[in-house]
């Protein structure tokens, strides 16, 4: 079913079109929710809420960008709204909150790379993780993140810097990425003579 047909069907509240749209985008959207959520169940709740919004607001889609991008934006906003309902979330946006946290080696999963990276992101404290998700993956600016999370732009920047450094540390420890020094040695080894 083409995107146009799916959109037209969804506007008519056609169940087959809605299901086709869901089948096409839900796996990717669930992975988006999973990065924000505490666990899979919470992620599925977010996904459900997000898709209901997608269907009910379909008339607002103007065919100006990609449909996936539009759905993704709705899902991300839904995730943020759900997180903001939780008091712990606003606490977690405090920089001092995550300073004392350490990542244990055995907490890092070792499955496939994409999943590994996502699981490593999920090991970050909630505040760090949210900012990193929004900035590095979803492409929001620090200004937008500040507005979205009701924090200062500078707070978003510092949250992101710390999140990035913590994630790098985890990824290096898990050998998903190499240390800068190892990179130089590797590049020298593979460089053409």
């Amino acid at each position: 079913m083409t995107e146009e047909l799916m959109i037209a069907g969804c506007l008519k509240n056609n169940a087959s079109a809605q299901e086709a749209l869901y089948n096409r985008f839900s796996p990717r959207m669930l992975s988006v929710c999973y990065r924000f959520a505490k666990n899979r169940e919470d992620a599925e709740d977010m996904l459900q809420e997000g898709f209901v919004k997608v269907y009910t607001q379909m008339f607002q889609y103007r065919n100006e960008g990609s449909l996936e991008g539009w759905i993704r934006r709705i899902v991300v906003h839904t995730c943020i709204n759900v997180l903001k309902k939780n008091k712990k979330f606003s606490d977690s946006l405090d920089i001092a909150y995550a300073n004392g946290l350490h990542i244990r080696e055995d907490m890092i999963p070792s499955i496939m790379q994409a999943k590994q990276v996502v699981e490593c992101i999920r090991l970050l404290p909630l505040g760090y993780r949210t900012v990193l998700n929004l900035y590095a993956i979803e492409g929001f600016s620090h200004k937008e993140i500040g507005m979205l999370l009701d924090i200062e732009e500078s707070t978003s920047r510092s949250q992101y810097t710390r999140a990035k450094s913590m994630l790098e540390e985890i990824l290096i420890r898990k050998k998903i990425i190499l240390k800068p020094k190892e990179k130089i040695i590797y590049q020298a080894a593979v460089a053409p003579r």
Partner: protein
Amino acid sequence: MEKRIYTNNFERFIKESADDFKMIPSKRVWHSIYNDLHPSRKWPSVLMCLILFTGVLFIGYENTDPTTSLSSEKKTTQNNTILATLENKNTQEVTSINSSKELINNKNNNNPTTLSTSVASSNKVSSPTYSREESNVNSKKASITSFYVVTTNPTQNSGAITNKLSVTKASIKQTDASITKIEASSENTTIDEFITNELKNNNGVVTTTKNMFQSVVTKSPQNENKIRQQSKKDNLNLAVQEASKQKNAKKKNWMKNASMEFYATPSIGYRTMSPGPQYDANPFLANTTIPTIGATNFDAANPMKHNAALNIETGFNIAYATSKRVKLKAGLQLNLTNYGITSNITSHPSPTTLATINPTTQAVEYSSVASYIANNTNAIDKIHNTTYQLSIPLGGYYKVLDKARFDLFVGGSVQPTYVFGGKPNVISSDRKYYVNESYLLRRFNMNTAAEAYINYKVGDLNFLAGPQFRYQLFSTHNKNIAVSEKLYNIGFKVGVSKSF
């Protein structure tokens, strides 16, 4: 290895990795969304709830039924008594003669015989009436009910009141519907004398034979017309009652042999898969374009990774016992079939082909389709090949073991099935993709099932549990699809049944 190199573009690496990651949401999410969007059309889980709710209601109703039956039987008995008391419309008082009751017993059978007296007033003259009701409840002759009605008509003769006695017997044979009525009357016999004579003549025992009454009483010409009229009326009443009784008896016999059964069978389901019967050439090749016909190694290229998954079926049956050991059954059943496929969900459609059979030429052809599911045995995504079916199980059971508390049954059934939904996930001809379109489902199918179960009796209820095997006779896919996939599952049936 390339990705493991540390790059300055850390964000890009994170984004690419995160975008590569996909997860399959559970079915619950779509069902919840569907129910939110279409509140008037709830998901089939509502149907399951309805079946269970109906089951609970039925069991509740059946558990209260004995009281109703009892009261109806009481009513019948009352009616019999009313029919038996002739000419007693002005009955004021009913007294039991317990002493006589103790004496009057039927030697031939041990069933209770009651004797009661009614004092009726007519023209300021006391007119006592005796009636005796006899019924054989437990024996094979339980269907025969006899009434002995002793009617007294007080007459004044030379200043003294004498009682004229008439005795009426009505026997109802429920088996052959014949109604016999014996009439007799005695003159100048007082009530006490009648009882005394009766007891004396029969050595303290009242027998229920026609001869006995004929020997005790003689016809009374005064009352003959009256009794005849009354007899006609009685005959009519009894005939009506008999017809109604027979109808009830027939109904009860049918219901006694019938029972209703509610059950659920969680099972592990999988599939057999092969090219279709017309598919003499093998299209399952690792070919990027149109597959070559003529290859022989079916499983060589692009292996598939499928695994068994949880299935469930639930429904109800009405079973009818045709003999002590054989039961026939028919019912309605909802099946959820399912097995897992390891694959990759892609974000973009990929062109592929499906091997189809031309209905006229029976030749294998290839149809171009788009797919979002890549066959990848190393993937972490898991999709499910699912169908939702409604079937009518028709079959029977044979009782292998009959013990006091439990029975062992073996049985089988055929199940005409309608597939009302599902995701077929048909493998493409090059085995690189799965195509998931609802039109690929075969809507009408046929299942067979074999089962054995133990039936454990607890009061009025029977609890049943045992293994079951179910096999789908036709392919899950549309008959034009060359790949034939037949589902089977092995499960454990649990249920409860209750006789009507």
